[in-house]
């Protein structure tokens, strides 16, 4: 179990290091390189599992087998905070439950708004969506960078609790990547 975690975090760490060094080395397009780092975060299960199209969050990770629909018939509900009788906060508190396989937690646990869907979308699709105020919560790129750095629920992706693979890098690193990407004109990949 511990070995598995090490392997997972080790892998993720390497991926980020590689991305960051590629950026630092100034490969052919620093904007696209930065985006690749951002995409690695946004498409990571800790982030993408709650940016879903069908109103049903996903489970994935070492103890859940392949990615699957969150059990218990969990759904977005009218306000994105679950359904009457079974709210997100019925199980998810403000911090991760300590017990193994217990529910993760962060303040205001909820699904991403319906228009901010990117689970299983391509790098290009997510990239274009992030720049589209109609589908990014009406944010400027700077606001997005700050949101990623400062939002408690987003931050959870890097501290997901025991037994879950964290998103690559850190909130601060992702913030820096967003700034670099924005400074480079926020280019999107061709596919």
């Amino acid at each position, binding site marked *: 179990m511990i070995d598995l975690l090490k392997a997972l975090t080790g892998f993720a760490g390497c991926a980020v290091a590689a991305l960051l060094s590629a950026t630092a080395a100034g490969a052919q397009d620093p904007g696209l390189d930065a985006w690749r780092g951002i995409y690695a975060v946004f498409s990571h299960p800790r982030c993408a599992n709650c940016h879903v199209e069908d109103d049903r969050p996903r*489970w994935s990770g070492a*103890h*859940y*087998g392949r990615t699957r629909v969150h*059990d*218990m*018939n969990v759904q977005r509900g009218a306000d994105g905070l679950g359904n009457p009788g079974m709210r997100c906060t019925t199980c998810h508190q403000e911090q991760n439950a300590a017990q*193994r*396989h217990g529910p993760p937690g962060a303040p205001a646990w909820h699904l991403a708004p319906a228009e901010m869907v990117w689970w299983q979308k391509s790098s290009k699709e997510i990239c274009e969506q992030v720049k589209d105020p109609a589908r990014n919560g009406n944010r400027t790129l700077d606001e997005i960078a700050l949101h990623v750095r400062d939002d408690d629920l987003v931050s959870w992706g890097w501290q997901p609790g025991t037994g879950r693979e964290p998103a690559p890098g850190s909130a601060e690193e992702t913030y820096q990547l967003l700034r670099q990407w924005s400074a480079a004109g926020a280019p999107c990949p061709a596919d």
Partner: protein
Amino acid sequence: MTMATLGKIARRTFLIGTGLVAGGLAVGYYYYRKPYPNPLEDELAEGEATFNPYVKIAPDNTITLIAPRAEMGQGVSTTLAALVAEELDVRLDQVIVEHGPAGHAYANTTMLEEGVPFPHFDESTVAELMRSGMAVAGKFLGLQGTGGSTSIVDGFYKMRQAGAAAREVLKLAAAKRLGAEPGSLWTSDGIVTDPASGTTFTYGELAQEAAALAPPAEIRLREKSEWKILGKPQARIDMRAKVTGAPIFGIDVRLPDMLFATLRMNPYRGGPIASLDDADAMKMRGVLKVVKVETGIANGYAVIADNTWRAFQAADAVKAEWGKGTYPPDSAGIRQALEAALKEGDASYGRDDGNVETAFADAPRERIVEADYGVPYLAHATMEPMNATARLKDGRLDIWAPNQMPTMVRQLAAAAVGIETADCFVHTTYLGGGFGRRGDVDYAIYAAIVASKTEGRPVQVTWTREEDMQQDMYRPAALGRFRARLGNDGLPVAVDMRIAAPSIIGSILPRYFPSISPIGPDKSITDGSANQPYTIANYRVGGIKAPVSIPVGFWRSVGNSFNGFFHEGFMDEIAVAGGLDPLELRRKLMAAYPTAVNVVDKVGAMSRWGEKLPPGTAKGFAFTLSFGTWVAQVVQVADVGGRIRIEKVWCAADPGQVMDPAIFEAQMMSGIVYGLSSAIGEEITFADGAAEQSNFHDYTPMRIHQCPQIEVGILETAHRMGGAGEPGTPPSIPALANAVHALTGKRIRSMPLSKEVEFL
């Protein structure tokens, strides 16, 4: 089946029986007839009188009935009390119902009777003799147990007799006071009335005098037409407690000065402790002790603390290294062992009609249907995790446990701490689910051992869900290999079935009675395949004990839980191959058993079988006779965007007589949900010797949004009485698999179905 075959099986099988009752049978007929002492006599309150092991009455007319079977949801406490109340002439809302102490007087003889290797429908003399022989053995063992869907069958005569006998002596006592003829007196609602004088006595007023009187030698039990309570739905006596969260379960037991503990046993089942380091655990708040628990069942440790959660935390902090068990460490290896047994093992034939070998020898290839089936290990996953509370003080052991086997708890827990059985007292709480899991008694033995380390303080030992899942006594995995030869009319002229599974009795006996060797065939391996009321000229069903030592136990409907799927899945394949409607196939093959045809017809009518269905929906059918109850089911499924929704289940059941139709209906629904639940996603797999599943995120029972509508139809045409708790389960699984085939064209022969199709 010929008499010669029967005799051979009977002798071989009875070896198990005689082993179990060694020393008992020799005592002879007289002892068998002599009643056990009435255990209530030791525990009467001031002024209270007891008439027999089932009835206590206090002077204030508080009437207590004993329902000596575990109430694990099946409604048995209500229906057993109703049996007594019907004859005692009291209302159910007027009585207190208690489980009562562990006592040989409460032996479940029916449970052992149904252990005989004969199909339920075989009423030949030899079968009847064997049944009564096993009943004798049951009484010798004094085995008080709840299982095999036997409680009501077992209690049907003796509980009504108990009520009638008490009523008659109450009338005798009143008659003496009045100088009247007992026959002239009336009884109702706990009162004796003399209609001539208008005088009335409450039962409580008469109880002391009445209890000293002998009941008449012969008492006529009331006819069904005279029943006021039986046969009608009753309000369950436990309902109010259960909707108010009352502290009635094992984990709710509280005693003065009680400690809280939990266990961690070697996950490689049966393996030893290699090393334990409790240094960190002992530093944690509230932790009193870490003790080894080493038994013939499992080895591990317990943490004793002042709060259950602190015990859980500290148990995580103990560093344990475990030795290996004796079975293949992973699912692939286990599967290989099962496959080898299926291929090469010696089969015991639970059924061998005609000559199967000859029938297949000249069969044209295109008339043969062949298929391999398989099912995984399954956990019981009762909602209340295993637990027991024990106190060992001044040579007396008290055990409070949700359990299905109180006399076994008493004997084995006492032995585990080195005291006499007579010095152990078992208090059976309500059970937060049983499903057979609490027919094992490991949790009680461990609690007794933990209590032997607490200097007389009571200790409640609660398992975590993870421990409950990983230390279960699983439903065995099983493999089946089947072939059929079809005649020109599409009906099978020969069916040959081979089924390999680890033996349940071969697992249970060594863990509790290591001196008894489980020889002879294990009937449960073919239960549900070898004993179905089909007439096929050449029909052979062989069971092979697969040598895999992962602990296995009774899981709701036992062998029927997989044989129902095997037999009825394969029958559906035969119907498809022969171009016959599945119901029509059954009507023809079961024509000799009108009860079977009745339930097939009934479920056909209920479900409007054969009518055109909306696109994207389909139905499947299955039939299983188990525990004396004949059950046919139809499951309807629908394709919802590539995922399958189970929409509806129709169930027709004939248990002969129904004591409480609402409770019977609930039991059918319950059995169906339990079966479907296993089919849509339950599986225990192994890696490094340990079960890979640990909690409800990876062992996923059915939830309400997956639950179909269920409609139950009851018939009462069978002439022997059957059970309720289990017979709903076996046909639900193949009926679903057959419906999935009808919907998708996929013939899924391996459980759970969710490995090949996705359910909502």
